[in-house]
């Protein structure tokens, strides 16, 4: 399928929010386009998708960009709102959430885990700008070890969810997620393919997508706001799963695909309600 922004914008986005208020050189737009491209390639219409967002760079910049219905939660809560909304929506309606790393893996992790546990049908796109950038640039829970940020001036040294063999993907898989993938923003068509699979899974899907932040992350860690440096730095530290090098931070690809392997949350709940209503028991 053609990879043309103007066509995607005309069909799916509100021009009022395009261009966004993101910083010059921000990589979020690339991730955003990957998601909209995936929706377009699946042939979905505006009415088929309800778009939720969080706070922070990723949430605020993508809020109200979708031409259809859109909602935003406070810090870390959009997953719980989406889980309640899932009960009220029709099964064929898709929920797509574009959120940030702090929102998903920090303050919202409990709600996120319970969405995975219940296999609630939603696609969570975690746009990871390697820390809390809208508050000026503090480290988060997937910030690479050693990264210099405003709150880790000596280098980030805390144990986190992407170091020493730990991976937030393991937590989500253990919690019951049925589709998990990781791509950096530069993965292009491969990322689009993963997002398509995520949306097609009738259950809980999450795609972790690190993207470049030239303004805060790069300026502190690389000492430069030059976009080329941070784009290259992320690309150099990413490699497809199975082809990791010693300095690979992000192994990219599909981590886990158990799409449509177990009952989806709302379907499961409504089936139980129907049965109790009819027979008085489960």
């Amino acid at each position: 399928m053609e990879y043309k922004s103007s066509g995607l914008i005309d069909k799916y986005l509100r021009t009022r929010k395009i261009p966004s208020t993101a910083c010059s050189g921000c990589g979020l737009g690339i991730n955003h386009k990957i998601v909209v491209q995936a929706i377009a390639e699946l042939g979905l219409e505006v009415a088929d998708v309800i778009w939720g967002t969080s706070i922070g760079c990723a949430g605020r910049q993508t809020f109200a960009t979708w031409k259809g219905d859109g909602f935003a939660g406070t810090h870390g809560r959009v997953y719980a709102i989406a889980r309640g909304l899932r009960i009220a929506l029709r099964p064929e309606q898709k929920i797509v959430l574009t959120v940030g790393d702090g929102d998903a893996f920090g303050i919202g992790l409990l709600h996120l885990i319970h969405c995975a546990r219940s296999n609630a049908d939603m696609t969570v796109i975690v746009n990871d700008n390697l820390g809390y950038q809208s508050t000026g640039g503090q480290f988060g829970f997937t910030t690479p070890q050693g990264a210099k940020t405003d709150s880790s001036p000596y280098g980030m040294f805390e144990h986190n969810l992407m170091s020493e063999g730990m991976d937030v993907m393991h937590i989500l898989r253990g919690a019951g997620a049925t589709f998990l993938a990781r791509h950096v923003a530069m993965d292009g068509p491969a990322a689009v393919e993963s997002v398509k699979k995520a949306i097609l899974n009738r259950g809980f899907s999450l795609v972790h997508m690190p993207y470049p932040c030239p303004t805060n992350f790069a300026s502190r860690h690389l000492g430069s706001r030059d976009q080329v440096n941070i784009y290259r730095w992320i690309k150099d530290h990413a490699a497809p799963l199975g082809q990791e090098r010693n300095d690979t931070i992000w192994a990219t690809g599909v981590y886990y695909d158990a799409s449509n392997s177990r009952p989806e949350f709302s379907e499961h709940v409504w089936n139980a309600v129907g049965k109790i209503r009819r027979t008085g028991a489960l």
Partner: protein
Amino acid sequence: MKRFLETGNFAITEGAILAGCRFFCGYPITPATELAEAMSKRLPQVGGVYLQAEDECGAFHLCIGASLGGMKAMTATSGPGFILYADPFGWALGCEMPLVVVNSGRVGPVSGITGAPGQGEFYLTRYPTQGGNFECVTLAPNSAQEAMAMVVEAFYLSERLRMPVTVLADQLITDGFEDISVPENEAEMTEMGFKVWPRKTHPGPDFYPATDALDIPPVQMGQNTGGLCSDWTPTEEGYDIEEVEAHHKHAYRLIYKVRNNTDLFSQLLEKKHLDDDPDLVVVSYGTPSRVVNTAVERARAEGLNVGALRLINLWPFPDQHFKRPAKYLAVELNWDGELVREVQRAAAKDSEVHFLGVCGDLPTIPDLLEVFEKVLKNQPLQRRGWQLEAW
């Protein structure tokens, strides 16, 4: 009409179902647990969904989600859970999402005693979240039967005012067994004064008009109306905006849609022996008001010039009932005094305002009578140390 000897939790459950609630999400906490249990049994029988969330913050957010999808939703908790509502409560106020919140008060602070009644959330139900620039509605029943009625009323108000409405009960109301009548059809509901307002879908695109108008349906997701709602200051269409004028429009609506429509709930109170303008007016709400009512009857029989004002609509505070200079005595289930502060604020010039706080238990009739007499005779009310001596 079906009659039961049942708990307030049962009554609240039946009231919610009568009001059209088909979604409940909670988290176990004494003394609101039985309400969740009753919901888990009853909701599937009427085609509704009961869910147990990861915590109270999650529970309220799931209710928000269900309401955002067009379902009438309710959550219930006690003080330690109510405090976790702070975050979603703000969202629901700001996004004008109808839902009903039940709080069964127990003695605090923090976890306190699980099985003792308390009234420590009087102000918390007025200021349940940060930021200001909003008004809240709180209803406080004093019996199981009235709890049912107030839950129906809360759903009605939440739809018309497009906001979360709190029913503030206490452990004795929710856990206590009482004689309860449940209407079985619309005629019986009307007879009992139960009003139901259906959920409608907002057609868009002006989701947050800067007016105090009632009866604007809330934003709904999934109807392809282009509905927008977020935690940020909205434009009238729902776009997020960093602009003070937009904020003024939004704040105006959040405050004045309630303040300019108080006739919706201002009749929710009970007066006892107030017709002859008694020297002493005893002010209370919730369970202690039942003891107060009895004590006032006794006091009258003994010739004391006392009346009782029981508030059901707590917020916005009904200042209009305190315009007559008199002696006011606030009786409430805490020692620090919450209700009494509002009475002090609202009381007419030249009034005297006194306070009788009881902690973890109900006041006794002899205590109340002694205090009534002292106040009427201008004798001082004093406490010495934590072990209360006689008044």
